[in-house]
């Protein structure tokens, strides 16, 4: 059963959201979804970019002014 894990990266400075995402994703099983919560404008670009490059399914949604949630489905 695919699980969903939330990673709170609010208020983190560059490039902490990306590093935390990489580490968190390693611990997930195939098919799990990592939800990264960010409020950093750089991260809303570099996190999806990295995850897509790694081959995962990525979607990003702006949930509030200056706040995003990046949904990463581990596919590899």
């Amino acid at each position: 059963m695919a699980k969903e894990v939330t990673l709170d990266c609010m208020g983190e400075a560059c490039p902490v959201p990306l590093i935390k995402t990489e580490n968190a994703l390693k611990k997930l099983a195939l098919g799990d979804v990592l939800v990264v919560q960010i409020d950093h404008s750089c991260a809303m670009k570099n996190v999806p970019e990295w995850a897509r490059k790694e081959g995962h399914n990525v979607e990003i949604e702006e949930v509030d002014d200056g706040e995003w949630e990046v949904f990463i489905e581990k596919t590899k």
Partner: protein
Amino acid sequence: MDIKNNKFYQMWFKNAWTYVAGAVLLSLFQIVTLATTNDPWGVSGPFTNWGAWLYRAIGGSVDKWYYFSSKGAQATLAGGFLKDPGSIRNLGVIVGALLAALLASQFKFKKIKSLKQVVAAILGGLLMGYGARIAAGCNIGALYSGIASLSLSGWVFAVFLFLGAMVGSKLLVKYFM
């Protein structure tokens, strides 16, 4: 008036631009800067003036310092923030970024989260300030403008900037995450 769904608004104001688009546009404005102001873009120079003004405000004086000894430097200090082009430009960068965030409805005030961030900001800021002074510029003045001006100093700066960044990355992961 449904602005948020307007394609033009989405493309130019809502969505992030690509890095390459940024590179090309920054280049354009760098070139315009050189053509119209006779000098390339620089950021860290005015910070010494800001420091001098703050220092004066608490009773200090930089008038005997070598760095501020030239007539030009003295005149800039005497003129104050509003009359210093470099300071105005830096203020413009801040406000321009704020404008971009507001027009995309993405502005949010992000409070400092931890003591680690405080230490990192203080240490990082001091290192950048001091480093930029003795290297005669920052990532814009010494690196970007230096290289684009065909100055070898820009490349030397680049090499050691890169090395410093590696050390900084190690420190960041070890102590500041």
